[in-house]
């Protein structure tokens, strides 16, 4: 996103601090990005010719209004379950039955369904339906959230699991499914005696503790399948093996893919629903989950290898960012002896799954998937924004209050609306304080 400033603003601008200006640009960028418009900062040339019209405050409010608008556009699907007629409408549509095929364009007349008639829905759908998906425009369209009905296929493309070329998608899927079951055979059938008991044991302890608050995860069939996926992944990646928390990551894919297949909202799926899925279809879902998990962890693999260097690095960065943006909070933590590792370890290990409700985390991941390095980089700024949100509260707390607060943070009650704001703040921080910029600043 680029903005052209008239050169004669230069003198005036130099009075402002460098950071403040960058912040303004970033806020504009957020606004532009979210509203899908291209906004040029207006420079009033006639009266006070050098003064920027926008104070950062105005920009802030504007960017939030823009957010609200875009939020309302997708709200009905992603926030609340659609009413039953909508569900019926949708299930009659072939669209959700098979995500492998192109998403058929929806007849304009059919439905008053607010989500499918929203511009974002159509936009994303059009992109996916095109013979060759333009990844960049798909990312752009998805940054502000993917409608619930399109999430399964969109994520699979954004994850790099399904190819952009629509014609190749079906073949790819068939091949990948075959690959996966080849792996399963190798791990479980050929080497039955040499199962890694430590890994298997850990997984079997964690499976019943995975998302126990979502009814579908009570299904034995689903649990077995999840265990297979995790074990198979762990065996194929000996550098990390299975690490607690990976079950959480995998369960997100199950939630989306199963929900998409059944065309039932995640929280309404019962274990019986799962039992009724045909064998081959269920295996297909399992294979999809495996490959998406593989691709996801592939992006952040060093977060799970010995001593978890990826996480350690992220925590150091988080610390640096907080020190830079809110020194008071940083000092307060230091005074109280609150180590960043203490609360943020889980944020990086489970990618905030434990900090938000499922619907909300899906929305956050929509954005991560639409960013270049969403899980390995943008996530850091989301964590920063999240912590700074509570700065005022935390400043009044002592050690144990802080730790207890962050252990069960109020973000669990957040709706998508609050998360939209959080993500826009994260975007702002990312634009201003990209780590390299921070380092350069420090060296000066």
């Amino acid at each position, binding site marked *: 996103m680029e903005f052209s400033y008239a050169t004669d603003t230069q003198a005036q601008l130099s009075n402002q601090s460098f950071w403040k200006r960058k912040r303004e640009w970033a806020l504009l960028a957020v606004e532009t990005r979210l509203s899908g418009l291209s906004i040029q900062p207006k420079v009033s040339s006639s009266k006070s010719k050098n003064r920027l019209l926008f104070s950062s405050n105005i920009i802030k409010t504007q960017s939030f209004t823009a957010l609200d608008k875009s939020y309302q556009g997708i709200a009905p699907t992603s926030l609340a379950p659609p009413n039953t007629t909508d569900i019926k409408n949708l299930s009659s549509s072939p669209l959700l039955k098979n995500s492998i095929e192109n998403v058929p364009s929806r007849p304009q007349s059919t439905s008053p369904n607010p989500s499918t008639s929203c511009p974002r829905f159509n936009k994303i759908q059009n992109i996916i339906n095109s013979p060759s998906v333009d990844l960049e425009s798909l990312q752009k369209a998805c940054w502000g959230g993917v409608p619930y009905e399109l999430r399964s296929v969109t994520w699979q493309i954004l994850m790099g699991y399904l190819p952009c070329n629509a014609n190749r998608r079906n073949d790819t899927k068939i091949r990948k499914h075959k690959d996966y079951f080849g792996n399963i055979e190798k791990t479980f059938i050929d080497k039955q005696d040499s199962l890694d008991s430590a890994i298997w044991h850990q997984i079997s302890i964690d499976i019943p503790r995975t998302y126990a608050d979502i009814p579908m995860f009570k299904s034995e069939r689903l649990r077995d399948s999840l265990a297979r996926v995790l074990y198979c992944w762990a065996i194929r990646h000996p550098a990390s093996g299975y690490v*607690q928390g990976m079950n959480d990551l995998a369960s997100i894919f199950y939630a989306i893919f199963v929900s998409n297949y059944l065309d039932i909202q995640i929280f309404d799926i019962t274990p019986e629903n799962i039992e009724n899925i045909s064998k081959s279809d269920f295996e297909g879902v399992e294979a999809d989950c495996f490959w998406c998990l593989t691709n996801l962890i592939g992006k952040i693999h060093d977060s799970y290898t010995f001593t978890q260097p990826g996480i350690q690095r992220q925590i150091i960065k988080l610390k640096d960012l907080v020190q830079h943006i809110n020194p008071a909070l940083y000092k307060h933590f230091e005074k109280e002896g609150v180590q960043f590792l203490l609360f943020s370890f889980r944020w990086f290990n489970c990618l905030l799954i434990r900090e938000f409700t499922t619907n909300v985390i899906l929305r956050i991941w929509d954005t991560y998937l639409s960013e270049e390095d969403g899980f390995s980089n943008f996530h850091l700024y989301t964590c920063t924004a999240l912590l700074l949100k509570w700065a005022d509260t935390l400043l009044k707390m002592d050690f144990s209050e802080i730790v207890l607060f962050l252990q069960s943070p109020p973000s669990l009650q957040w709706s998508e609306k609050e998360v939209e704001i959080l993500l826009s703040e994260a975007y702002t921080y990312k634009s201003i304080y990209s780590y390299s910029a921070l380092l350069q600043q420090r060296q000066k």
Partner: protein
Amino acid sequence: MQTKQIGYHFSLKCKQNACKARQHTGNNSARVKPQFNSLSFADSTAHVKKFLGSLHLTLPSVPIASPEKRISILPTSFHVYSFPPTFSILHCSLSYTISTLHTFVLIGDSGVGKSNLLSRFTRNEFNLESKSTIGVEFATRGIQVDDKTIKAQIWDTAGQERYRAITSAYYRGAVGALLVYDIAKHTTYDNVNRWLTELRDHADKNIVIMLVGNKSDLRHLRAVPTDDAKQFASENGLFFIETSALDSSNVEQAFRQILTEIYRIVSNKAIDSSNENAQPGSGAQIIVPKADDNTKASNGCC
């Protein structure tokens, strides 16, 4: 161990101006010895910012402080060596408090019920489907010991090997550890030795350890006989108890017992050490680093 628990407050009075020096050792183990890095002079009229010289104290037996109460004692002798020797000290006192905060860790294999023991003890909650612990978690609860309230700070750790590097950092400050196994799973009992090694490597050598056989409600599934565990515990100098986070039997007792033991040990240590030479409070030499401007220092005070 006890040195971590005691915070010192130290004050010096000299002829004309009241000069105060403070040092709180807190629970930072790196600073257990009362070395005064700086003396700050409370008197605002004094120009002295830095104190040049050294100070020798001899202290009497330190009585056991009742928690949270500050006790002042007078050293039996003290000398201040300063340059120029203008100090003439009228009064010196040292006060300390025994911190009432005790840190514990819950360790043991994954799935033995550590998190549920903690939630049962601190919130009286049990959850069959509690999520796995990632890294470390924390809870506090006050407990009554010998009509004093002691605040227990308890760290719950993740059992998986991969997290060992992170969790072991929390052993360090702990005065007590609850080493939990599952009476229905023999492997979790077999691993107790590994956890003991882990503690020996990372924790304070005086840490009090209690072996806890959890899930005692699963009688029909018992895999570890009580007597075996009891014998193992006594051979290794551990306390032992069987609990059930589910029906809450013995949970309170487990925490209470280990807290009581620690409290006793800490209190005894406080008496013992005050009679020894090496420990703070008895003839310890307190060295104050040189001030960079000694003329000012000597002119200002007295």
